[in-house]
Structures are given as C-alpha cells and as structure tokens.
C-alpha cells in the first residue's frame, strides 16, 4: 500500500510539474546561464597563483553541479507551500494515504528534477570542454541525489513550519547563501583569510564540492570522497525522518 501510495503521489506530481512551463525555465535555464556567463569569467582567474586547477571548466563544472543540487532542492519548499495554501495537502492528509508515501512521493519527484537538471548541465559543460571519469561521474550522481534528498527534506520541512512565503524565502536564503559561498564553488576557499577557511570547514558543501572535483577527475579514492558520502548519507536520513514526522503532524 505504501508503494502504491508513493507511486500515486509521484505520478501526480510529475504530471502537474511538467504542465507548468515555468519549471523548464527556472529549473534548467538558471544553471546553464551560470555555466555560460560565469564559467568564462573564471578563465582569467584560473591563471592566478594558487588556483587549484589550470582549467577553469574542470574546476567550475563539478562545483556547479553541487551548487545546482543545493539551490534546486533547497527551494522546493515553495511548491509545497502552494499546496498547503490551496488546501491540497490537507485534502490528501484526510485520506488514509501513508504519511511516509506522501513525503517520499514529493522527495522522489524533486530527485528526478535534480537528475534532469544535472544531466543538462553536464551536456552543456561537455560543449565547454569538460572531461570526466565515468566511474567517478556515476558516484557523483549518487552524491548529488543524497544532497538533493537532504536539501529537499529541509526545504519541505521549513515550508510546513513557516507557512508564510516571505518567511520561507528569508530563512532559505539565510541558510543557502553562506553554505554556497563557503563551499568554494565560486572561488577556492584557500584564497580566503583563516577565519573564512575555518568556517568553511564546518560547511558540509565544502566536502561535497571537493569530492565532486575529485570524482570527475577520476580520483575516486581521494579523502574528500568518503567524507562527503558519510556526511550526506547521515544528513539525508536525518532530514528525511524529520520531514516525514512533519507530514504526520503538519499544523498547516
């Protein structure tokens, strides 16, 4: 029954998501714009002293995949808030639907969206000369999914707690922006002063970005890889459990 419920929620979500043309724009175009407009900017920086990679796209593309996971999944709560607002979630919660299925259905759809976006990004980056290791790339897909589950669960939970769109936007930005900047996606954290470097060390996304770069270059055994997997495996399980609990007791 739980599987059937999950399937029903998931297929309904997919149907609804793909009917909204805005999704294509918001979901796919944004990361591609980053790649096209921000990537070339890095070409000049790549020649600077201390820059870890001579090739800007090899440095930037893996980070961009992580950034996309952080942003795309980090903002899914807004769609749930719409569902709360129009009573849709409440309507489902008075049916005997399994609460776990309700949460899993939404998480699965956000994961599928993330996979599509990541695929589009990689295709684009290939045009810019990206080269990556196949096995490392497959492992990176798993890491991206773990990040997606973590962030989507967090965002969905925040959406249930905050209720107001403005509050959710504020909380999300305050959470996501520092995580992004300290992760070293844009510029290497090693460029920064000791305080920033110390702060970056508690940002799980620093490990994710480092692991992504290692995986793409084929260095599967790099220390950053197991660190990132352990961190996000734990975080994804914890946040998913919190989200399911929220679905059980949702106030809204």
């Amino acid at each position, binding site marked *: 029954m739980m599987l059937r419920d999950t399937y029903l929620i998931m297929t309904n979500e997919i149907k609804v998501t793909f009917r909204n043309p805005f999704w294509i724009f918001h979901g796919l175009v944004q990361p591609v714009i980053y790649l096209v407009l921000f990537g070339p900017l890095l070409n000049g920086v790549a020649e600077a002293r201390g820059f870890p990679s001579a090739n800007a796209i090899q440095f930037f593309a893996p980070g961009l995949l992580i950034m996309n996971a952080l942003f795309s999944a980090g903002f899914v709560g807004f769609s749930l808030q719409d569902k709360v607002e129009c009573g849709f979630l409440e309507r489902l919660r008075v049916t*005997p639907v399994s609460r776990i299925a309700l949460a899993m259905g939404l998480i699965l759809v956000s994961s599928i969206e993330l996979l599509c976006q990541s695929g589009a990004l990689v295709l684009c980056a290939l045009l810019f000369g990206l080269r990556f290791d196949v096995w490392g790339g497959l492992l990176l897909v798993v890491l991206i999914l773990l990040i997606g589950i973590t962030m989507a669960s967090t965002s969905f939970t925040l959406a249930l707690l905050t209720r107001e769109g403005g509050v959710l936007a504020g909380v999300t930005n305050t959470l996501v922006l520092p995580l992004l900047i300290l992760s070293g996606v844009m510029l290497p954290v090693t460029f920064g002063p000791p305080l920033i470097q110390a702060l970056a060390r508690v940002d799980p996304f620093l490990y994710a970005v480092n692991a992504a770069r290692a995986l793409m270059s084929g260095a599967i055994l790099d220390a950053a890889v197991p660190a990132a997997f352990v961190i996000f495996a734990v975080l994804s399980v914890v946040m998913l459990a919190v989200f399911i609990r929220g679905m059980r007791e949702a106030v809204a």
Partner: protein
Amino acid sequence: MAAPIIRIEKLAKRFAGRGKKIVEAVREINLEVEKGEIFGLLGPNGAGKTTTMRMLCTLLVPTSGKATVTGFDLTTQAREIRRHIGYVGQKGGMEQVATGRENLMLHAQLYRMSKADAERRIDDLIERLDLASFADRKTATYSGGQRRIFDLASGVINMPELLFLDEPTTGLDPQSRARVRSEVRALNEQGTTIFLTTHYLEEADALCNRVAIVDRGKIVALGSPADLKKQIAGDIITLGFDDEGDVGAASSLMQGTELVIETQRADGSLHLYVDRGDHALPEIMRILGQAQQAPKTVHLSRPSLDDVFLKLTGHSLSEAETAE
C-alpha cells in the same frame, strides 16, 4: 439507540501564541452527534469551530481529552477514521493545474479504490452533481460555485458515513449557496451524517437539525434551532438611537417597567425582550415619548439565533466577527 457517530469528552486544544502566551482555541468541549443528523457548529471566526473540526478529522492532534469518530478512537485509530469520513475544508484542496476529474481520480485511488471502481464512482458523481460541462477543464478555471460542488464530490468520493464541511458556503454567491445547501440536504437524505461549521445564522437555522453555539472555545448552547430560539421568550423590540447616551437613558427607563422582561445593549441600539410585542410596542413608545427619549428606529421581531447568541455571550455574532 445506536451509538453516537461522534462522541467528544473534554476535548481541548492549546496553541503557543505570540511570546509566551498560550491560546486556548478549544476548551474542554463535550458533545455527542447522532447518526443521520445535520449538526452545525455556529460561532464567529476564531471561536474554535474549525479547530474542533480539524481535530475530529485527524488533521490536528488534540492537547487533551478523548473522542470517538465513527466508532474509532481519535488518538489511536486515526487511519480507520480517515477511511470512514469525508472532509471538505475551507480551501477545498483541488490541484489547480489538473482537471476536476483528475483530482477526483487521485483522491479515489488514495482511498484504495481500484482504477475501474474509481472511474465508475467518478462518472456517477459527475452525472449526479451535473459536473460534466467542466469536469475536464483545469480547476484553475472554475468559478467559486463550480469549485465548491467539485469539493463536495471529492468529499464523498469514498462514500463516507460522516461528512465534515468547514464553512461550506462562505464566499459563494446566493445561487451557489442555495445549490450547495440542497446538495448537502440530498446527501443527508441518502444517509450521510453531516457535521458542519458556519458563521451564517440563517444557514444553521435552515440546514441543521441541531446546533452548538460556540464562543471563545466553549459551547455556550446546544439544541435544535427552534429550541434555542425558545430560550428567548416572546418577542424582541430593537430601538435604534443616535448616540450611546440615549441608549443608556432609554435602558434605565425601560428597566423600570413591567412590560420588559430583559434589556440588552448592543452598539447604538437597545434590545427589549417582551412577552407580546404587538401589545408592548405602543406602551413603550408612549413612555419614551413622554421622557423625550423617542428612538430613531424601531424594529419588532421574532427571536433569531443571533439574539440567542447575543443573550448567551453578551455580544452579537456580527460584532464578534469584526472584533477578530
């Protein structure tokens, strides 16, 4: 006699309010609803009607107290209850970019109906409720009335024995309102027990067999609309004045007479409860005229539920509404 379909014992809900304030939304309500009734919770916004209903629908966990709904325990058998009840919330709950039919299909399948059974049930509902002309359009294009009828269809998709309706006609035009009411009556005639909330007095009066009047989280009166109105003997004469000072003066004049059983002030007007309005009115006008306190307007009426509400709570329903 059969067991009540809803039995509530000391059900309460407290919310954390601003700061350290605790909001007592529902204060230890006791209530029984029998099978086959159309039962109404009547009260102003913020009285605790919706909170009570949401607890009974398993959407909200009570702070304390006990309840059984359709024979199942609210705290331990929520899933069983969900199978046997229908619920139409204030917001409806249709997915905007899906059609009405698609929405119903999702809901039906979540009630564990097979696709074939669901299709049959949906076709039946669409025909019976006359929804065919817009069933295959996106619900975003529906008018308020069309949406409400579809919400009703969704609420009964699982053929519930008990249907909860939260403010079923709020925000509708008079025509749609009448339509929703007649559908509710029809459902009730087919054997569905109805539990609804409303802040429309005429709705409670016209639709419900029994009404509980709720104010500030408590039930202040319970009975059939006719019984409740009988609590107010005789007739009501309402005198309108230009300023509060005149209301006060007239009030003290009237309290001195034997004609008037009781007086009640409500902004700018004075309500007089009298035995026979037709006999009392000329005498009252004579007394006020002599004292140079003639009112601006006079209104003689049979008691309405609003008068019951006013008498029980000290404020009128419409007043309480604006105070929210």
